[in-house]
């Protein structure tokens, strides 16, 4: 059954390879490229949120670190794009290591707010530094080939998706992460080191996010703190995952496509109402939590869902908030 799914994914991926052959309109190809980028950002967000239970409200920090690292290496050091973007991913990974080290030992709430604060602090830092161009942003050498960027983005996101599929759905890693998500204390007794696993998941989430940021920087040729480090990046990744269905690989993809389609339509017709878009994002996030606990995927008829039983099957123990610290007295 799992292999049939993989065939399905591969088929969809193969089909997307043909998009540039059919779509000749430059604007439309840009839209497709951006859609692929958002799929990547949603899937990377979900590795941590859905599989590990840690919300990274500062996802933009890693996107921005990747974008700025790539831009600085290309503009200030004259690097070629590919190694610069890879180093952008590495920088994001190191950022995750540094940010995760004190926070991943603690409960999820600390992590959520600390990453959120981190994204703001990094934005502030970029604004005051010279090497980043401060509020003026950075202009990269232009390479105007929509097809090139479509394939680079698709290849990158495709590799990320299939690597995640293997690691999370086939290899032991995914089950171990789920064990930590479900019950961290219980997982320890089974020989799992939760902090290490969470850290691995965080890095696994941050590295591709950083590379995507690097590709984005080269693609759009101009970056500034708002476009790469602004709240909107994290907020959109969050809404895509929550709306699509957290804790699955397909959910974020579906969520990303639907939300991105909405966003594109919204900007095309209502670009004067930027704030309305934010309100809608907030409403979709809050509304999904209340009405679509498993995302849009959750309302479709289920057939052998990978993410374990549906909530209806769960006993009452599953819905109680976790008690912290366990029992201290016998």
């Amino acid at each position: 059954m799992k292999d049939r799914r993989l065939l399905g994914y591969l088929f969809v991926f193969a089909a997307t390879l043909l998009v540039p052959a059919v779509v000749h309109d430059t604007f439309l190809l840009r839209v497709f490229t951006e859609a692929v980028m958002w799929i990547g950002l949603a899937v990377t967000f979900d590795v941590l949120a859905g599989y590990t239970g840690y919300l990274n409200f500062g996802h933009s920090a890693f996107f921005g670190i990747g974008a700025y690292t790539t831009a600085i290496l290309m503009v200030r050091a004259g690097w070629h794009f590919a190694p610069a973007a890879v180093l952008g991913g590495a920088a994001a990974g190191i950022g995750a290591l540094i940010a995760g080290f004190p926070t991943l030992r603690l409960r999820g709430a600390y992590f959520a707010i600390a990453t959120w604060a981190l994204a703001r602090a990094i934005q502030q830092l970029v604004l005051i530094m010279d090497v980043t161009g401060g509020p003026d942003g950075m202009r990269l050498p232009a390479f105007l080939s929509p097809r090139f960027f479509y394939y680079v983005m698709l290849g990158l996101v495709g590799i990320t998706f299939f690597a995640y599929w293997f690691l999370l759905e086939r290899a032991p890693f995914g089950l171990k992460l789920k064990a930590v998500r479900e019950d961290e204390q219980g997982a320890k007794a089974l020989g799992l080191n939760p902090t290490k696993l969470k850290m691995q998941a965080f890095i696994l989430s941050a590295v591709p996010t950083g590379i995507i940021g690097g590709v984005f920087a080269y693609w759009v040729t101009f970056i500034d703190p708002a476009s790469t480090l602004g709240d909107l990046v994290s907020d959109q990744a969050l809404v895509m995952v929550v709306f699509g269905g957290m804790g699955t690989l397909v959910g974020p993809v579906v969520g990303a496509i639907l939300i991105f389609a909405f966003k594109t339509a919204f900007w095309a017709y209502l670009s004067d109402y930027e704030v309305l878009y934010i309100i809608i994002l907030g409403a979709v996030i809050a509304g999904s939590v209340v009405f679509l606990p498993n995302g849009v995927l959750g309302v479709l008829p289920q057939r052998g869902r990978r993410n374990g039983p549906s909530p209806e099957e769960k006993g009452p123990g599953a819905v109680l908030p976790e008690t912290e610290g366990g029992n201290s007295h016998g």
Partner: protein
Amino acid sequence: MAEPILVVDNLTKNFGGLAAVSEVSFQVHPKEIVGLIGPNGAGKTTLFNVISGYFAPSRGKILFQGKNISGKPPYVLAGRGIGRTFQVVKPFPGLSVLENVVIASFLRHPKRARAEEHAWKVLEFTELADKAHQSAASLTLAGRKRLEIGKALALDPTFLLLDEVVAGLNPTEVDHTIDLILKLRDRGITILIVEHIMRVIMRISDRLVVLNFGQKIAEGPPGEVARDPGVVEAYLGGGEA
């Protein structure tokens, strides 16, 4: 007698100013079943949590197979061969019974296919094989308690800490679990068990260690301990049957 597998030496665990466990010493020998009893709040679960690495001891030390393990985290101890169950059973509710046991099997079998094979053996041993694909949360209490033992067993432990694995079960299920525990011992696993139901603990334990207010008040074969006036006073007199 052979070298003890576990030595608890003058162990104290404080919470704030309160000593939950105070200067407790005892030993467990290979293939023994040792019962740890005492009234509610006597410090049994705290002692379990210290031995299994959830709390670091405030004073004293714990030797396992001759090595000091005080303060080592639970996942390291699991690797050394210490398995444990929880009083409040903790299956991973969103995962299937099989997946629950597979996760524990990864410790000795890092490859997924081998881990699944191993998990099936454990499920057959604990008679959960027919429920393998159910969600863990859908099991009855008896099933969840058996799954809890199964998860600990999947670690291939040499030493098992069982925390109230029969409490709340009906008499048939109790007998069933007792058989399971005895079978574990026959496989060469040493067991330290906390249990409230006297009938069970008397039947399966080779020796008993009695705690009261965090201190050890008696130790010895079940028959002897049951006649110890201090124990009767503290334990049986405390309203427990």
